[in-house]
């Protein structure tokens, strides 16, 4: 690498700043908006004139609390359960796909791919009818099942790539050493696949967490409504006030933990996504 001349360094600095501003400006804008008074929303300044916690109060303890807090609980619960089930199922499926050659293997993989590229919006209406008829409408299970269809394909693909990287000789050596297939899997493979499973769980969680279409179509009360859908229902103090402040505050509360998780585990996530790409 050429050492950078001061001129080049300045240019790189300028470009970096521009890119950062472009990417982060909306985020900061939302954070700033969440601290503005509702009446001052249209003043047109970036930073709030008066910093206030009132938006946060409103959604956590005030009038919007009954809309926001249950939806937060729903989101966390549904996403965690969907992720847990998806990871367990994907681990078993990916192991079989990576190790065995069985009739229907190609079919499973192409179906998984097909499911993941299928536009969600087109199946939401029939699903709505079906769920209404069998009583899954507005329940946690009614959301967990569609979320599995969102998270399983990518989980299977990511984990299969992981398992393929682990040489088969490890299980074979364990079997010769006296292990049953299950012991070989648990003692020799699982410790090595743990990073892959963790990364897959993170990816699956984000997909489930960020879903909007299923969330808004398959729920009607706060019994099962997740956060992205709930945000659409926020109203302001009067019909003339927009709930932008409250929505911003809710967005901050929902996004910040996710951002922190990603920052903490970014190395694992990146290595998880690129692991399957190159051999070795």
């Amino acid at each position: 690498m050429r050492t950078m001349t001061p001129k080049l360094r300045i240019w790189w600095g300028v470009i970096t700043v521009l890119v950062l501003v472009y990417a982060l400006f909306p985020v900061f804008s939302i954070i700033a908006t969440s601290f503005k008074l509702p009446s001052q929303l249209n003043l047109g300044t970036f930073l709030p004139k008066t910093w206030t916690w009132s938006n946060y109060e409103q959604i956590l303890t005030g009038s919007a609390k009954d809309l926001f807090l249950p939806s937060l609980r729903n989101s966390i619960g549904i996403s965690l359960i969907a992720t847990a089930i998806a990871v367990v199922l994907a681990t078993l499926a990916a192991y079989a796909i990576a190790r065995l050659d069985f009739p229907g293997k190609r079919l499973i993989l192409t179906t998984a791919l097909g499911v993941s590229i299928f536009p969600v919006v087109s199946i939401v209406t029939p699903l709505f009818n079906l769920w209404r008829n069998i009583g899954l409408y507005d329940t946690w299970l009614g959301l967990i099942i569609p979320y599995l269809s969102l998270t399983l394909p990518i989980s299977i693909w990511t984990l299969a790539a992981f398992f393929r990287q682990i040489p088969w000789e490890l299980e074979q050596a364990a079997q010769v050493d006296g292990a049953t297939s299950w012991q070989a899997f648990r003692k020799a493979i699982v410790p090595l696949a743990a990073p892959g499973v963790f990364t897959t769980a993170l990816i699956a969680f984000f997909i489930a967490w960020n879903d909007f279409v299923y969330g808004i179509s398959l729920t009607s009360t706060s019994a099962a409504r997740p956060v992205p859908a709930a945000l659409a229902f926020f109203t302001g103090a009067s019909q003339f006030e927009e709930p932008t402040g409250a929505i911003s505050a809710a967005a901050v509360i929902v996004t910040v933990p996710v951002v922190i998780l990603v920052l903490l585990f970014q190395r694992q996530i990146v290595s998880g996504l690129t692991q399957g790409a190159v051999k070795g």
Partner: protein
Amino acid sequence: MAAITLKDIRKTYGDGFEAVKGVSLDIADGEFVILVGPSGCGKSTLLRMIVGLEDITSGELTIGEKVVNDKAPRDRHLAMVFQNYALYPHLTVFENIAFPLRLQKGKFTEEQVREKVEFAANTLELQDHLQRKPANLSGGQRQRVAMGRAIVREANAFLFDEPLSNLDAKLRGQMRTEIARMQRRLGTTTVYVTHDQTEAMTLGDRVAVLRKGELQQVASPRGLYEQPVNLFVAGFIGSPPMNFLPGEVDGDTLHLPVADVPISSELKEKLGDRKLVIVGLRPEHFEDASLTKDAAEGTVSFDVNVDVTEWLGSDLYAYIPFETHADVASKLEELDRDLDGEGMRTQMVVALDSESRVRDGDKASLWFDPTKMMVFDPEGGENLTYDADKVREVDQQNEQDRKASIQRAQERESAKAS
């Protein structure tokens, strides 16, 4: 410790490919048998069938008097060393070696586990590396850890699947002697798969040569070297490989491209009414006539043009091109391909004394002893000069030597222990 018997073992894959075609082999208790052959001959498949990682399509496999065809690997009490070591990267060397013991929960106390692991580590000079992870070890050390994991179980037999092919040449030589030493000390039945005929010759009590799933010959290394049963075995064993020359039978003389050899009456009987044969002569059977005073009685002398020479310090290899006969050319090419060779021209290799003054482009005077010559049928490739009695004699001698050396090793062990 157990004897392994293979009776007509066959392996056919789902798509119809026959990897192993009816192999029968008797491995005595404590014997070191080597399965050798070019790539694709079925030796690894055979090994994996013995250990249980592949199903046996038909035939019977007996380990220690019990038929084990349907038993899972864990129930056969065998230990295997893989080509790429297969060490558990998340465990230390100690834990890697202790892994098989820990799987048998409750059978060993922590103290016993430690004792066994340390014994195995000491046998292989690994005692200083017990707390390190495999990623930090060299290739030779990793291979020794894999061997340690095999030793610690006191299994019925050891199975090695080309364990040295990932090591560099010098390390390979050192590890070879380690393996030989270990096997003699422990006296465990061992089956070793390799494609390297040097390893086969130096390590094995008996060597089984395989080609395309079929067993060609099983004998002691000396038996294979001196009395190969067919063209393939003759060409496979020995480095540099045996020279094959076309021989035209003309009355009492055998015309070779480089010389004419008188046919003795016994040889004439074996030749029958063949007109064309393939003659095999090992490079070391030739001598430089200028170095010896007089060629001895009964030897055949000839002059040839030498193309290229290689002086190695201990020997001088001279390459002599010759015209081959059209009828045997295709057979020899096929043989060359089977032996993983890429022979581009027909040439003879002779190994002369390093004092020889023969150089590139020279005309050399050589002689050889025709009794060392082997004659092969050009169609089927069988060795017409094969002497079954001689082989039996050599093998018996070999067996006696083996038992004696095991005896000596055991006496040494008990002397050390007391």
